[in-house]
């Protein structure tokens, strides 16, 4: 009986030891988007292809990453929390929400904005608007982005309350979902002002939308995250691979210039903005 057990163990061991590891390391990368899903695939697939290659080299085993797109913040966050995706790329607000529910998720890297891990959020008005300062927004309508968006909600609302404008001071406000929707609504005169990221603002202005910057505030770039219980060795390999990515084509498709190291502490400010958000609504 002992002999039989020994032989079985030996066979199982040797099959594992001597047969080459043919099965790939199959990972799922989750992402949520309000944009056209196929465009998002085209945006992320090239960088994932490069990542697969580099990670495979570093890890020493073939790494395959499949892209999983969801339509909503909560779906995306849910998948990561439940471990249905191994990796994810969220906006800061979603990361903070997920981190609260699953504290063991880890940051692999932050997207780089010209070598920095910050970028700007803007409050904009119509180009012909008489509004000259944030305080002028009292009694005016305001367009926010997504309810869970960092710029679209938390940072902009924090900025407004810091400058003495609260929800109750506004004539009205709405969450329009996307940054470009906000910009176009303001340009069309539907709202007196709106919050959106700088890059979208510039694109809209370039297209001829009559917008003017009223105020700016910094934001932290998006984190690439690994799920709870993700193998550390693999996480390190992926982190190393991300930081090493220089492929211009893939980076151009992604719309970033690379990755930089990041920690959970980078989002302390935003976490505070979320926590204090209630102050805006008092």
């Amino acid at each position, binding site marked *: 009986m002992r002999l039989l057990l020994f032989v079985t163990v030996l066979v199982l061991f040797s099959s594992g030891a001597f047969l080459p590891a043919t099965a790939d390391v199959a990972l799922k990368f989750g992402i949520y988007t309000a944009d*056209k*899903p*196929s465009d*998002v*695939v*085209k945006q992320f*697939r*090239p960088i994932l*292809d490069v990542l697969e290659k580099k990670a495979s080299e570093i890890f020493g085993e073939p790494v395959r990453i*499949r*892209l999983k*797109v*969801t*339509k909503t913040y909560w779906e995306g966050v849910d998948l990561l929390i439940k471990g249905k995706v191994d990796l994810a790329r969220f906006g800061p607000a979603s990361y903070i929400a997920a981190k609260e529910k699953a504290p063991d998720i880890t940051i692999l890297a932050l997207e780089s904005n010209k070598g920095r891990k910050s970028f700007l959020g803007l409050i904009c008005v119509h180009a012909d608007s008489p509004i000259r300062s944030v305080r002028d927004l009292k009694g005016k309508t305001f367009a926010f982005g997504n309810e869970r968006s960092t710029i679209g909600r938390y940072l902009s609302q924090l900025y407004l309350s810091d400058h003495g404008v609260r929800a109750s001071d506004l004539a009205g406000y709405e969450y329009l979902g996307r940054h470009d929707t906000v910009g176009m609504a303001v340009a069309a005169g539907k709202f007196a002002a709106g919050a959106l990221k700088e890059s979208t603002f510039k694109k809209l202005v370039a297209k001829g939308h009559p917008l003017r910057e009223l105020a700016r505030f910094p934001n932290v770039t998006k984190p690439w995250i690994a799920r709870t219980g993700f193998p550390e060795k693999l996480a390190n390999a992926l982190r190393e691979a991300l930081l090493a990515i220089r492929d211009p084509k893939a980076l151009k498709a992604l719309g970033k210039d690379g990755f930089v190291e990041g920690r959970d502490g980078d989002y302390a400010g935003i976490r505070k903005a979320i926590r204090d958000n209630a102050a805006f609504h008092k």
Partner: protein
Amino acid sequence: MPLSTNRQGSTDPGRRNHGRWPLWRQIAVVLSVSVFAVSVLVGGLAPHIEKEHLSTTFHRNAERATALVSATAVDAVIVEDLPALQTVVEQSAAVDDDIAALKITNADGYVLAAWSRKAATERTDLITTSHEIVVAGQAFGTVMIEWDTETMFRDAEDHVRTQIFFVVASMLGMTAIFTLFGHLLVTASIGKIDRRLRRLMTEKKLGEENLPRYAARELLDLSLSVTKLAKAWEALEEAKSDLERRVEERTAELKNEITERKRTDEKTLHLQEELAHVDRLSVMGEMAAGLAHEINQPLAAVVNFAQGCVHRLRSGKTKPGELLDALEQISVQAGRAGEIIHRIRGFIGKEEPRMTSVDVNAAIREATGLLEFEAREHAVTLNVDLANPLPKVKGNTIQIQQVVLNLARNGMEAMSENGSTPRLLTIRSSVTKSGAVEIAVHDNQYGASTESLELMFESFLTTKTGGLGLGLSICRSIVESHGGRLWVTTDGVNDTAFRFTLPVA
């Protein structure tokens, strides 16, 4: 049996042709059989080909449709938006009646949305197309469509059958029309032309059958050519009979002319004969004195011998045996005189000119006998040089002698007149290279020219004091009537020769 069949077949081509069908019927049969064969072939293959063609086309279209569904579904598939996908599936299926089932799965093979028209067991003829949804190299799912092609192919086969039916029917119709027109335009016309030609050959007359007005242009041309040919033939026949008639007329004319000519020739011959006779009389007249002397000599000798015999008999001393020699001499001399007279009579006698085989040498010798006195008179040495053997000629002895006599006398007279010495007259016979007999009379008169000698042949021209001047021209006409030739040669010094040839008998 085979022999008789063969003979029948080979000797009666017309009958052999009876077994054959007319051209139009042959064409009709060939065309009908071809159309039938093609119809069977096309009828058998066409549905299959059509089905293949339809299948290929259908596949292409089906794949295109599947790709279209995939394109519609791509974003919903990426985010696995099930309600949206269900809408896509149902809307797509509603567009096309041929879709039996439609299914969209994700990359792991889980069905995201599905739709089906019938229970799977009822489907008989299904084609499945699928399209993988791939974005930026990552597969997100697959669209699969099952197509029900049964109805489509059945309709297609019916359609093809109908088409084939109409094609075959129209081809047969065209065959019939072609055959009918072919018969009207070609074979009927050829038949008529053939009948006309046959009639032309048997009756030498062209039938009046006109071709139909709508016959093929080439055949109308052919018919025209046949008419022209017939007319040419008729003209030829007419010309032939005309020619025959004219030949007959001309032949009759020629016969008359020949009769006339014969008569004229006979008359000419007679006249010539008469003339030759006159000439002979003339010659004899001229020779009369000499000849009288010739006769006189033996007659004188006869007289002498006779007187001597009379003397002897009167003296009574003689014996009859002694008179025998004298009497024999009398007989010889009288014979000699008789001989001369006989010759003269023969020479001047008016006998019918008979053409016989003549010994020229003998004729010359006899003629020479009449010349001896004249030769002595003119102090001419007469020389006869005769070839031996000499073939006989066809002619009249007296006339040949007349020529020799004339020529010899001319020569002697000429030598005598221009005082030639010595005077030698040579009569020579020989055979020419061409085989004819030539008689030449040479003299040695001085300085005769060819021109003056030729002039002597003219009638009534003479240098002599006596005579009619007809001698040489008569000689020439005699020789020519014998088929020979008379001419003169001279060396310009002292040898003149009159020569004539006579054809060998």
